[in-house]
């Protein structure tokens, strides 16, 4: 049903989204914990910065990434020279862009569940002899589980749709950075590519529907 190139785009999309979500998750958890439990100056600012990707034009983010991590840019050159890490024109770069763009979804979902559950349970666990790390793993993480799962699924689904930041930062290279949305776009650039674009668009809708329903199901199952 799908051509090899289309299958390639689908699998690449899934891989980019999975890596983006997995890599961002620990940071998202830490940030959500900070926002839900800690009081510190600049909390509002941090909150705003984290939500920035929701309103920032993705192209602007892609450009910023290019400016910072491009091979001739300071940080990009440093990473390439000393660690052999190159992100530009690589699928890992696409994953980085996706991770940043979908970060707010993860933080929000985890923060919500941390604010709703577990207030006071930390004090109870401490009085029962559990130290800070012990409490993190025995109480906070398990309680945040539903939020982590719901956030990860939402972020994954959103990641499948990223376009602007990816095409600006890592271009559209078949098999390397050409994810589903980019494949739709390049199909439309070719004469007679509408049928392919339509198939890929349909596939995107199916994927989005599936993952959003999954996220809903997860949060409903745990809402009690």
């Amino acid at each position: 049903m799908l051509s090899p190139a289309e299958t390639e785009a689908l699998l690449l999309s899934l891989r980019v989204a999975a890596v983006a979500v997995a890599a961002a998750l620990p940071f998202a958890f830490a940030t959500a914990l900070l926002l839900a439990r800690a009081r510190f100056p600049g909390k509002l600012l941090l909150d705003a910065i984290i939500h920035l990707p929701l309103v920032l034009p993705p192209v602007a983010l892609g450009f910023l990434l290019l400016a910072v991590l491009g091979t001739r840019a300071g940080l990009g050159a440093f990473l390439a020279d000393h660690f052999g890490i190159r992100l530009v024109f690589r699928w890992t770069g696409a994953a980085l862009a996706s991770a940043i763009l979908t970060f707010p979804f993860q933080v929000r979902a985890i923060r919500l569940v941390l604010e709703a559950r577990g207030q006071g349970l930390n004090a109870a666990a401490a009085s029962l002899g559990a130290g800070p790390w012990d409490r993190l793993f025995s109480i906070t993480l398990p309680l945040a589980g539903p939020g982590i799962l719901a956030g990860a699924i939402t972020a994954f689904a959103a990641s499948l749709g990223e376009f602007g930041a990816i095409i600006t930062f890592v271009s559209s290279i078949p098999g390397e950075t050409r994810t589903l949305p980019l494949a739709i776009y390049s199909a439309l650039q070719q004469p007679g590519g509408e049928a392919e674009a339509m198939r890929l668009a349909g596939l995107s809708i199916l994927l989005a529907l599936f993952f959003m329903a999954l996220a809903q199901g997860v949060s409903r199952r745990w809402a009690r």
Partner: protein
Amino acid sequence: MTLSVRLRHRQGDFSLDVAFETAGGITALFGPSGAGKSSIVAAVAGLLKPDEGRIVLGDRVLTDTEDRIFVAPHQRRAGLVFQEARLFPHLRVKANLLYGWRRAPEPASQDEIDRLVALLGLEDLLKRYPHNLSGGEKARVALGRALLAGPEILALDEPLASLDVARRAEILPYLERLRDISQVPMLYVSHAIDEVARLANHVVLLEKGRVMGQGSAANCLVGREGLGAVIDATVIGPREDGLTELGFDNGRLAVTAKAAPGTRVRLRIGADDILIARVQPKEISANNLLRVTVAQIVITEDVCDVVLSAGPTPIFARITAASARRLALAPGLPVFAVIKSVTVAT
């Protein structure tokens, strides 16, 4: 194990300035809400760092602001039971109970666990999740969980306040049994005088962040909120008429409750259930008559508060001012206290 607490703390408009010591049994922190009871418990548990103060449990200094000592909450071994139970929702009752046990320096043996589970009546709940428990069941699990952590002190912060009267009545006997068999001293925070009168060995009266008085339950509580007397008595045995005879340090009483000779019981008598007679009444339905002395009378308009003393035991009666004048009550006068009804708790 003694607990000595000295605290000064300011939080917004509220200032706490208290000092007290306890030794064994149940020490009640009694007072209206806003008295600072929960802040004291939080400071003992290490959840509140006081501006100034020193808290010593046995020979361990837990908090000393002068010497900059502040033992982390999880190293204090101060078991806490909160009003809302605070069970871990993702763990079954059994895992909740064993949470502190797994982290205890000297964990209880399986035998001791079984005994506590039986004592608190938790056998049938072990496989359930907290959201499937009633309020009273949650309170019992929270109590068991705190005890299995092997605490050196147990602090109960209004553990019954969120329960209705029936559930309270269900928990109180467990608390009494624990008080009588457990070596762990308890701090019991409450604003309910009936609970405190029933449980406490020692009472610290708190109001607006200050200690207003402390001492035995009888000395601190009698005269408050219509409480006429708190008497610790021992069961002597059954009488011929079917009542049970009790002895206390200044006399004997008869009650309908049955208990084995030698059992220690605590009696509570309402101030409205005490009548005063100048001469010994005969042919009267009340079963109990105590020879007492008028210690103090306070007349405010139509009401007369009379403090009677039966040896060291204070008894408080409230009568009308007219009755007090008719009987010509005055301090030092020997009278009879006629007791209409006695509430017994073993």
